């Protein structure tokens, strides 16, 4: 592994050291300094609408249950781990339950997390049951229907954490006439490679004309003329990248309020990255689940529009499937090139530095501390790594 200190893995002239993507030690440090300090996306409220509803997911790298209290309707985020011997207590993706019962020895918890019952409990004369509920993440909050949780008991609240990104999250929530819902399930991807490769790729317009050239040919065939995407990326001044601060970033395809987007049906007028592992791209919520330094899973939840016709929502699903997912005509090419081939190439460590300086000289400051750059510049990637470096360099 690199002997560089975390702060030295990114230079002032924006070279990145390859061990950021390959080192198990860096990954272990990320679990501590990124994922135990940040606000982490866990659910959209439409997934846990009724008391008793739950979904299982990951808060960063840790398995959790997001459950709406059967008694009080409060949304809690609970570690999915029995306090006895550690088994997950819930293995379904989603459902409704008043209790979670561990299959190993039958310990039972209310869906609020409290330990309800221990089987054959005469063997535990002194156990303090009140302290043995499923562990709750100390802070849970939501913005525009998106639920976040944090392992850190103290620190900035969610509003402050989101900062300039809050406006875009609220715009996402207003895509449908009556909002959005995540009721269509999710594409589940896995790849051999680091989780940050997916973040970078999500908001990288530089790659589109190259990796997705076959899809551009499909679009040309569909529309009878070459699509204007690459021309917009290179020349449209309304297509721009923005560092929103706090690690968040956005790529606007025109006015984010009105949506001057030339994408597919249901597509957002921007791509949005919320530090550390949530993205909005196309018509989807993209939740990135780091598994190991070289192993990642990704969930793509299509956003259906509340108050819109069934037919329109079905068309949103069809448009999503055409490009995204394991069999999509675009997303699979990202897996091949941006993840698999990069991961293989990064084994050549004799010269381990990479370039993330694209467009540095022409990024301009805007209001509220933001930085604005050209569409194909690496402004969003630098936004992410600026925050990453700060957190990684701080003493635990």
């Amino acid at each position, binding site marked *: 592994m690199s002997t560089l200190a975390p702060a030295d893995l990114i230079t002032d002239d924006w070279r990145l050291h390859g061990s950021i993507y390959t080192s198990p030690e860096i990954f272990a440090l990320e679990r501590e300094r990124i994922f135990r300090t940040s606000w982490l996306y866990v659910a959209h409220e439409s997934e846990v609408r009724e008391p008793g509803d739950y979904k299982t997911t990951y808060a960063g790298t840790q398995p959790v249950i997001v459950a709406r209290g059967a008694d009080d309707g409060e949304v809690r985020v609970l570690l999915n781990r029995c306090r006895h011997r550690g088994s997950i207590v819930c293995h379904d993706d989603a459902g409704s339950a008043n209790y979670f019962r561990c299959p190993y020895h039958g310990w039972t918890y209310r869906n609020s997390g409290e330990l309800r019952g221990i089987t054959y409990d005469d063997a535990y004369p002194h156990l303090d049951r009140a302290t043995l509920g499923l562990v709750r993440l100390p802070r849970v909050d939501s913005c525009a229907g998106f639920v976040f949780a944090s392992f850190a008991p103290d620190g900035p609240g969610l509003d402050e954490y989101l900062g300039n990104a809050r406006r875009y999250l609220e715009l996402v929530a207003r895509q449908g006439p009556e909002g959005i819902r995540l*009721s*269509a*399930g*999710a*594409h*589940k*991807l*896995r*790849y051999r490679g680091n989780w940050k490769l997916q973040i970078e790729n999500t908001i990288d317009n530089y790659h589109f004309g190259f*990796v997705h*050239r*076959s*899809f551009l*040919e*499909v679009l040309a*065939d*569909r529309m009878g003329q070459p699509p204007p995407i690459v021309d917009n990326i290179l020349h449209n001044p309304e297509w721009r990248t923005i560092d929103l601060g706090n690690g968040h970033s956005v790529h606007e395809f025109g006015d984010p309020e009105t949506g001057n987007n030339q994408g597919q049906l249901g597509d957002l007028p921007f791509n949005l990255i919320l530090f550390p592992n949530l993205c909005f791209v196309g018509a989807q919520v993209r939740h990135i689940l780091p598994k190991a330094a070289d192993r990642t*899973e990704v969930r793509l939840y*299509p956003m*259906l529009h509340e108050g819109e016709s*069934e037919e329109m*929502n*079905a068309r949103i*699903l*069809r448009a*999503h*499937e*055409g490009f995204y*997912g*394991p*069999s999509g*005509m675009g997303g*699979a*090419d990202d*897996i*091949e*090139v941006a993840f*698999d081939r990069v991961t293989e190439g990064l084994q050549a460590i004799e010269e381990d530095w990479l370039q993330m300086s694209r467009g540095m000289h022409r990024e301009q400051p805007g209001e509220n501390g933001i930085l604005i750059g050209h569409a194909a510049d690496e402004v969003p990637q630098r936004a992410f790594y600026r925050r990453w470096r700060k957190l990684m360099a701080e003493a635990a």
Partner: protein
Amino acid sequence: MTPADFLYHETALLDERRFEEWLELFTDDALYWIPQGDEEDPAHRVSLVYDDRRRLHERVLRLASGFAYSQDPPSKTCHLVGNVQVGEGAEGELEVASTLLVAEVRRATQNLFAGRVTHTLVTVPDGGYRIRRKIVRLVSSDIPLGNVTFLF
């Protein structure tokens, strides 16, 4: 040609990468569908693939473009069709159920896919069949998958 013979022919075209000929086996109103998970409801649930004939054409066009990196190098596949059961369909149609195993080798990895397949076949005047619907129910459709861009 029996319906089973037709399925063997169809999958042989895929293994031999004769995709344009494979495409010609589908009717103009065809559906090629790979649902995800047990809830099969394309109006409300996302699928891995839900191609009408137009999109199926695009899929084949993409593979032939020379720039479909997820198929560069291409998957080598071996389709095994078994347990063929021919049932009655609507007028002029046959519902053919089969079990499909596909071994796929790409780069240094071999993957195995399995599923139940339903073909809705229409008979054509020359004595053969065309595919109006092909539904591939993979047993692995709801687990995290990598690059699955070869054709079933």
